Each structure stands twice: as structure tokens, then as C-alpha cells.
């Protein structure tokens, strides 16, 4: 009985209990026994050739086994037809030599249950799972197409094609990550593309349930420590560094790394070597893609993208501005792509930290200022033209000095706006009405309306606020202490209520747009 203060194992990170043998980590010691240091599996039994369809068929009377599609480390896949539903399915059988391996059978069960929980257009659907004739089997959606490896071998991808594949991939991975499932073996062989050009992620065979231990739903503090003794999984070239050195710490960010490797390979045709070279040095691509790929390939998970959806956003941004012909910015600032939500544009992301995009803020405020002042002047003009008697006596609008002051303010806003636009590297035509029209052309009508509503809403809010301030000022100046001021209070209260409601409505539109970016640009399907 050794008395040690609770420490962590330097190797696998699990907390050592008091009775750890000689103060050493039991899991790591056992790993020594199992000789599981780098290889996927230690004793690879002699691989028997895959059974021909005729030998499989008797065990699956409900299927018509058509042909053997191939075999991987886990098992053999057959193409079959489900007789009752008359549809094509893929039948995956656990490799016969693995059937006695307790570890593999457990993994197979886990794959089935993990996949069953994932119902997504970009994830291979699982139909059934069970045991038949001594085999464990998995019945899955049949994807009529090729996997990414075969496509890569056939020809190299154009950057546009690569950019078209990544967003749906990110969707699928984010979907799985949201449900606590990490794929851990993302590689071109596991990414299927059907004839319609749809990407599907397959082979969640080594999916790891984050946040549950042994799939029983019990929370665990470190991510699935069961893998601390298990063999290092994942294909070496595509697995994240922490999968090899620190298996207990692997989480969804490992998938982001693997995605980065796949992306790199799609763009350059090669795997990222020991010294990571930016893809743009090898091929002619948008330099902003460098940032995305290199960040995904960061050795330290903390420096990578933390969510797959971030990758998708960046990629879609780059894809959109590339298409619309806007001036590409080498600095990587998101200028004003049609797909980016308004709220997002107030912030610029550099090296993973958001800070306020000052030029854009200035531009926005100056434009708002212009609109507000213009509106106020216009209202004053209308009132003066119609000779409407103003209830409070002379307001400040009637005086020419006020008008001049407003015009001066508008000029100042205009200048500030120009300066800010220059800081954003935009051409001067882009601001002003012509620029607005150009941008408006690039947006869908829905976005346009929303954009207008936001601007008008903000302007109205500011105008109303200005009115309120002026009215209050008048009140205090002229009728301070007067008994009749009591009557105006409800009116003022109503004003405030209206303004609050209006501003709430405007803010909701901001938040609404942030959480549900509805600009789903339909990327042209480049893969036929």
C-alpha cells in the first residue's frame, strides 16, 4: 500500500489513485504488457480472404448479396439488395478473424450505436445491426459513388471542388460533435461521394463517446479513459498529434486536424510533411485558405479551430468573395461578403481572437448618422412646408442655425465614412449609393429586406431618441416646475415605451440573423 499524494500520470494524464502500484500509472503499465505503443493492432492474425457472396447469402435471407465492395481493417463490405424494400444497401461484416477478439466486438457494437444516433444527410445512415451466422453485421445506406481516395487518385481537385466538399463535411462533423461523438478516423477513404456530388461520412468505427464512460451515460472527467490502455487508433498520417501522444485527451478537435490534413491533400495533392508548407506555395489558391488549413493543422489543439462550424464559416466566406469578384484582401480581413451576418462584421478575427473591427464600426456609425440627420432634416422640411403648427411652440428645428448645424454634421459623417471605407480597403465607389446598389445586387431579396430593416430600424431608433432628447430638453427649459408638466409625463412614457419596443425589435433582428444565417449559398456542384 503506497501512500502518494494524488498526482496525474505524465503519460496518459489520468489521475493516480492512492493504491497505484509503486506510484506508477496502472493503465500505462498495462499498455506495456499489451505492447500497444504505436501500431493500430498488435497481433494481426493472418487475414483470411473475404468470403464470397454465396457463402454469406444463406445467413441473410432478407438480402440479396450482389458483390464484395472491399475490405478494411474492421471488416468486409458487400453490396446487397434488401428484398422487401427493393433498395440497395451496404452490408458490413466484422472480419471473421476478429470475431473472437473481445475488443473488436465491443467496438463494432459501439460503431452501430454511435451511427444510429446520427441522422444527417451527410452521414451514412445505418439501418440495422446484429449477429447472423457467427458474423457481426451492420446494414447501412449504400452510397453509389466513390470515396475521396479514389477520386484523389484519379485526378487532382480544383480549389473550387475542394471548397465545395468541405462545408457539408463540416456540417456532418458538427452534427456528430454536438452529440458528443468524435469520429477519430477522418481520412479520404472514409469520405464517400455519391453520383449527385453529396459527401457522406462513413466508418464511425472508432467513434468515441465524449462525456460518457463505456457508453452507459455516466459522466467522466477525462474524455473516455477507457482508451488510455487501448491501442492508438486512427490512421497515422491523418490522426492528430494528441491521438498518438495523449490518447486520453483526444476530443472533437482531433477531427478538425484530420479534416485539415484531408483539405491540404485535396488542395495540394500531397500530405502535409514534417515542415508544414502553406498550400498557396504549392498551388495557385486564395491565400486566405492558407490560414484556414494551417490553423486546422495546429499541433496544439488549443490553437486550432475549436468548432468545425468555424471552419465552415471561413471556407464559405472565402468561397463567396472569390465568386462575387470583390477585391481580395491579402490581410485576411473579412470585408463584406454577402454571406456574413451583419453582427459578425463588427468583429474581425485574427489568430482566433475577436476584436472590434473599428473601421467598419466607424463606417456603420457614419452612415447611420447620415441617415438620421437626413431624416430629421427631411421631417423638419415637411413640417415647415405644410406649415404645421407645432404643439410645443417653436422647436429647435425651425431655426436656420440648427439646420446648418445638421448639414455640417452630415458632412462630417460623410468624411468619416470615406476614411473608414478606405481603411477597409474598399474602392470608393463601394460606399455611397452606387456601392449600395452593387452590394444589393449580390444579396438575395430576403437579405436585402433584412438589411434595410436593420438600417431603418436603427435610424428610426436613433431619430426617436434624438426627438426625445430634444423634447425633454425643451420641457426642462420651458416648463420646469409648471403643473402642466405632469400631463406630458404619460406622453413621454409612451414615447419611451415605443422606442424600447422598437429597439428591442431591431436587436432581435440582429440576434436572429446571427443565430440563423439564412444565406445558404448554393455552391455549384463541380463534381460530376
Amino acid at each position, binding site marked *: *500500500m503506497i501512500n502518494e499524494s494524488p498526482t496525474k*500520470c*505524465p*503519460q496518459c494524464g*489520468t489521475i493516480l*489513485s*492512492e*493504491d*497505484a*502500484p*509503486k506510484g*506508477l*500509472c*496502472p*493503465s*500505462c*503499465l*498495462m*499498455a*506495456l*504488457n*499489451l*505492447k500497444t*505503443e*504505436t501500431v493500430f493492432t498488435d497481433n494481426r492474425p493472418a487475414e483470411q480472404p473475404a468470403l464470397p457472396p454465396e457463402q454469406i447469402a444463406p445467413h441473410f435471407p432478407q438480402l440479396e448479396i450482389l458483390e464484395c465492395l472491399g475490405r478494411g481493417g474492421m471488416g468486409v463490405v458487400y453490396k446487397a439488395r434488401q428484398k422487401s424494400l427493393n433498395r440497395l444497401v451496404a452490408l458490413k461484416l466484422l472480419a471473421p478473424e476478429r470475431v473472437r477478439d*473481445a*475488443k473488436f466486438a465491443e467496438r463494432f457494437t459501439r460503431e452501430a450505436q454511435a451511427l444510429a444516433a446520427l441522422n444527417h444527410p451527410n452521414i451514412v445512415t445505418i439501418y440495422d445491426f446484429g449477429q447472423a451466422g457467427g458474423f457481426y453485421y451492420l446494414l447501412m445506406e449504400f452510397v453509389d459513388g466513390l470515396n475521396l481516395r479514389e477520386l484523389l487518385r484519379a485526378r487532382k481537385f480544383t480549389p473550387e471542388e475542394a471548397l465545395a466538399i468541405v462545408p457539408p463535411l463540416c456540417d456532418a462533423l458538427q452534427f456528430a460533435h454536438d452529440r458528443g461523438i468524435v469520429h477519430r478516423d477522418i481520412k479520404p477513404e472514409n469520405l464517400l461521394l455519391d453520383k449527385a456530388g453529396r459527401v457522406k461520412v462513413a466508418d464511425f468505427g472508432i467513434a468515441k463517446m465524449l462525456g460518457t*464512460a*463505456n457508453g452507459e451515460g*455516466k459522466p*467522466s472527467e477525462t474524455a473516455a*479513459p*477507457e*482508451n*488510455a*490502455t*487501448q491501442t492508438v487508433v486512427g490512421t497515422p498520417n491523418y490522426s492528430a498529434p494528441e491521438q498518438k*501522444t495523449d490518447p486520453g485527451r483526444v476530443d472533437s478537435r482531433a477531427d478538425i486536424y484530420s479534416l485539415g490534413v484531408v483539405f491540404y491533400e485535396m488542395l495540394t495533392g500531397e500530405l502535409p510533411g514534417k515542415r508544414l508548407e502553406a498550400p498557396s506555395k504549392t498551388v495557385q489558391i486564395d491565400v486566405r485558405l492558407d490560414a484556414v488549413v494551417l490553423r486546422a493543422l495546429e499541433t496544439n489543439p488549443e490553437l486550432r479551430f475549436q468548432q468545425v462550424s468555424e471552419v465552415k464559416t471561413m471556407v464559405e466566406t472565402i468561397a463567396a468573395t472569390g465568386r462575387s469578384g470583390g477585391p481580395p484582401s491579402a490581410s485576411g480581413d473579412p470585408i463584406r461578403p454577402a454571406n456574413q451576418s451583419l453582427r459578425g462584421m463588427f468583429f474581425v478575427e485574427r489568430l482566433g481572437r475577436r476584436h472590434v473591427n473599428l473601421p467598419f464600426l466607424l463606417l456603420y456609425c457614419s452612415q447611420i448618422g447620415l441617415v438620421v440627420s437626413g431624416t430629421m432634416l427631411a421631417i423638419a422640411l415637411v413640417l415647415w412646408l405644410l406649415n404645421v403648427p407645432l404643439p410645443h411652440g417653436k422647436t429647435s428645428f425651425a431655426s436656420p442655425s440648427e439646420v446648418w448645424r445638421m448639414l455640417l454634421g452630415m458632412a462630417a459623417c460623410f468624411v468619416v465614412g470615406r476614411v473608414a471605407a478606405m481603411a477597409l480597403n474598399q474602392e470608393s465607389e463601394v460606399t455611397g449609393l452606387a456601392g449600395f446598389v452593387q452590394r444589393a445586387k449580390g444579396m438575395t431579396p430576403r437579405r436585402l429586406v433584412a438589411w434595410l430593416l436593420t438600417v431603418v430600424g436603427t435610424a428610426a431608433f436613433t431619430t426617436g431618441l434624438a426627438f426625445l432628447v430634444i423634447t425633454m430638453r425643451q420641457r426642462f427649459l420651458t416648463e420646469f416646475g409648471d403643473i402642466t408638466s405632469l400631463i406630458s409625463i404619460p406622453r413621454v412614457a409612451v414615447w419611451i415605451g415605443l422606442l424600447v419596443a422598437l429597439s428591442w425589435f431591431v436587436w432581435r433582428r440582429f440576434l436572429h440573423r446571427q443565430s440563423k444565417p439564412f444565406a445558404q449559398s448554393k455552391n455549384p456542384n463541380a463534381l460530376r
Partner: protein
Amino acid sequence: MNNLSSSSEAPRIFPHTRWSLVVAATGKDAPESAAALEALCRAYWYPLYAYVRRCGQSPPDAQDLTQEFFCRLLDKHWLDSADRDKGKLRTFLIAALKHFMSNEWRRASAQRRGGGRAPLRLDTSIAESRYAADQSSTLAADETFDRHWALTLLDLTLNRLEAEFAAAAKPVDFETLKSCLMAGRGAIDYAAVARRLGVNEGAARVAVHRLRKRFRDIYREELSQTLADGDDLEAELQQMAAALARK
């Protein structure tokens, strides 16, 4: 699977592990098997205690139970029942304990059989403090048992390793080298090890390699001691790994 060998005929498989000795000598009064059994019980009683405690017994009850169980076991009455397929020591012990707990213990209450004679002196006070310090309280009783069994095996192996080093008059070396047992192949700082041992780096590498190999060999040997003939060592190894992995 179990060979009831009599001393007059040569056994088909010579029982060379402790447990197979015990199993083979059923019905006979062989001193070697008695010694073997006692050695095994002395080594592996704590997992049983942990199991009993995990089942919800209070510490004094658990101590009594465990002591009583081993008394009965060492009287060898149970081992004489040849109709039961004994299998591995681990599965046999836990099955026997469960049987004992459900049938016999209830009748025994506080009464001690065997005249209060405890042939196996179990240090139950230390056991209780060890159990209390153990934080892994999310495991079921069976898993607790398996886990402690696996830890006991590791303890035995390391103790033997340490004893070997002490016998060779190099106890300090063991302290230095033992952390190398955990690290992956690429993570060992051989230069630092060499410095601490006072040898050159090449010798350090050899020493580490020998240590790791010796560890593996001793572990397998200890593990096989608990297996009967025909049991699969690799399968048991996998189960031990799985038992340790569950937290």
C-alpha cells in the same frame, strides 16, 4: 480441463502453476498444493475484501466475512467438490465468495467457525484504510473486484522486480528506472537516466530495455500462476487491461 491426477500415474500436463497445482491436487493431501493455495490467498485477498465492502458490508462485517471465507477455503472442503469446473483462480474465488455470502454467511452471524483459528492472518485494518482512500466509487462490485485484482497483479510484479534489484544490490537503480516502465518508447529521456545511474547512455538504454522485458515476463508469469491448464493467457491479459481501464 482439470486433471485429477493421483500420485501413482504421471499427469498428462504437469501442473506448473500454483493454481493448477491446487486444482490438480484435489482430494489429496499434498503439501505443495496447500502451500500454493496459501500463497495465492495471501496475495489476492484484498480484491475480495474490496468486493465485500463494495457490496455494502460494513468494515467489521467485511473483515469477519473475508477471514471466515479464507478459513473455509483453506480447509479445502470446497476444493474437493470435483463436479465444479474451477477455471481461473479469479473467477473461482469470486464465484465461491458470492456463494459464501449468499448461503453460508447469513447463517454464521457473529459466530466464528474453526475455533477462531485464522490460518491466514489478514491485515484488515490496512485494508480498510486502503479501501477508504480509494476514490473510484463509481464502479460496481464486480468491476471493483476485477480492478483490484489487476492492481494486485501489478503490485506483485513490481514487488518482484524490486526484490530482484535489491538482491543484485542495486535498489536505487529500480527507483530511477521504474518510471521508464510507463513512458512510451519515444518519450524516455535516456540521457537523464544515464546520468542518474552513473553509466553511459548506451548502457542506460540496455538497462531500460531489460527492465521492460523483465516486467512483461514477470507479469505474465504471475498471471499464469492464477490460471489453470488450458486457460488463455492473452484473453486474461485483455480482461485485466479492460478492468483497469474502467474508472
